[in-house]
């Protein structure tokens, strides 16, 4: 297509603060190479959606710059809009209109018409297995069908860059797997550049070639899923303590544990200690011994291959599920403030 291999998306030091001093972005950097899938992974409220809103010209950043498909989002929002397809978190399809009518209207907004429009709409209906339901009102669709229609709406004009904001939230496991297959197909066959946001570790692991972990409005680490996991050499040993240890105790314990042969790192998170060891199973007796000597009671110990959750803990300084729960709580406290 284009001769340059400039990144399809390039955002630099984006910041955004919403009224009420809610900081959504604090120096967000995102680069997505043309034809690749980047997963923005982070808990609710980490700044993923705000990033998507800025890159899709819905919102303006307070500072920083961004180009999408080679166009500056601030100076040429119109050119950006022609180049992108957006599948937002909220469906946005008209419930009273049929699937076909929704697609036709969307196509017209991009200037498609006549036979070309009809052909494109038929193709998409077929491809997303909506042909049988094409002439039914969208309000009769199941969650999975609606989501497929949303993706089809985002593709009507054959965009260069596709934004998928939490594409499988609210879908049952079966519909989610089907959607994953569809997204993988899009990225593979059509050479589309995709920016995907998700708070499912598994989803990012499965779909994205590169993952950027977002926490508190900026990217804390970026890499391939395997690379990120590989950086955590060896196995992860998760030890559940009977009670949490204080700040001083942690330093002491951490020193004692990493002094053991083959043990690289010990991260504390409440009552949990995550230890990285060359040979997880082999290290367990020594670890338990060290904890016993320190007078710390152990409730359980498990050995696992490192997961993205471990990567998250390492770079964001907290466990993923905890960050997610915390942000949900923050949102509840903030109430109507968005």
């Amino acid at each position, binding site marked *: 297509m284009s001769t340059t291999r400039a990144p399809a998306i390039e955002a630099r030091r984006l910041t955004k603060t919403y009224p009420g001093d809610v900081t959504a972005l604090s120096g967000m950097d995102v680069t997505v190479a043309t034809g690749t899938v980047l997963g923005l992974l982070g808990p609710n409220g980490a700044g993923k959606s705000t990033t998507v809103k800025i890159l899709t010209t819905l919102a*303006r950043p307070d500072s920083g710059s961004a180009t999408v498909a080679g166009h500056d989002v601030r100076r040429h929002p119109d050119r950006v809009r022609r180049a992108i397809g*957006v599948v*937002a978190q*909220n469906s*946005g*399809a008209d419930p*009273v*209109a049929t699937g076909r009518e929704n697609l036709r209207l969307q196509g017209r*907004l991009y200037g498609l018409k006549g036979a070309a429009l009809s052909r494109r709409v038929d193709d998409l209906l077929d491809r997303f297995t909506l042909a049988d339901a094409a002439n039914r009102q969208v309000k009769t669709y199941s969650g999975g069908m609606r989501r497929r229609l949303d993706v089809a709406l985002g593709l009507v004009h054959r965009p260069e860059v596709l934004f998928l904001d939490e594409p499988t939230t609210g879908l049952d496991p079966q519909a989610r797997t089907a959607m994953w297959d569809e997204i993988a197909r899009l990225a593979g066959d059509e050479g589309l550049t995709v920016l995907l946001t998700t708070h499912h570790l598994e989803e990012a692991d499965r779909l994205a070639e590169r993952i950027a972990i977002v926490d508190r409005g900026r990217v804390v680490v970026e890499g391939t899923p395997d690379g990120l996991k590989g950086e955590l050499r060896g196995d992860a040993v998760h030890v559940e303590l009977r009670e949490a240890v204080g700040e001083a105790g942690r330093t002491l314990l951490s020193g004692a544990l990493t002094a053991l042969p083959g043990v690289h790192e010990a991260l504390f998170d409440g009552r949990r200690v995550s230890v990285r060891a060359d040979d997880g199973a082999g290290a367990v007796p020594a670890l338990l011994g060290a904890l016993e000597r320190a007078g710390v009671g152990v409730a359980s110990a498990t050995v696992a291959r490192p997961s993205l959750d471990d990567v998250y803990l390492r770079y964001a300084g907290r466990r993923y599920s905890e960050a997610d729960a915390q942000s949900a709580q923050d949102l509840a406290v903030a109430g109507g403030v968005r």
Partner: protein
Amino acid sequence: MSTAVSQTWYMTQRQLMVFVRQPAYLLITLIQPVVWLFLFGSLFKKVVELGGFGTTSYLDYLVPGVVVMSALSSNMWAGMTTLDEIQRGTLDRFLTTPVSRAALMNGNVVNNGVVTALQSVVIVLLGLLGGADYPGGLGGVAVLVVASVLLGTVFGALSNALGMLVRERESIIGINTFLLLPLTFLSSAFMAPSQMPGWMRHIADFNPLDWAMVAGRSAMSEHPDWGDVFGRGGGLLALAVVSVWLSIRTFRSYQRSV
């Protein structure tokens, strides 16, 4: 057709379809004025005997009143639709496409105008069926329809602005229920001005609802006072322009707050 015009048409078509596809809603919009016509028509039947109505049949007097009242009550809910579209994500979906921003707003205005015009014509026809007389002829009826469309535009645009500003249904419901009846009764909708208490008449002079009724009634009478028609009509037009401008401003501030 230029892009902005054709896009305005797509947006209008989309909204008109919502209206047509929800028969219950359509029916209620049309039945309510019938209820008003027969309720008020029977209740106040003898009131014409007091004089000052310019006719001997109360129905003649009542039809323009109900037309204008219905224009107000159907348009003041426009903000609910806008709110739905914001919450459903439809508005954001359109905003990420190259669609002309003006077309998005115009679609609302044109759709509301078409629905109001349709509703007004139906009420006029129902009145005719009930034996009302319109000495001003088709021209007079046309003026009434235009006046009620303008009034609908004023309140539709304000309601949209309110929806985008407060983003909660409760506020729109509260303000609408608060306004509908006082605005209606502080006008010449059901009572001849000469029969109204003086202070009410003065307030009515500043009530856009009253402007639409005065313009419509005058044009529909045997000897229209064109000064009244154009004066009040011009006032409505100016107010409609200001309201639409205001709602476009709120739309811009909505975009900044996303």
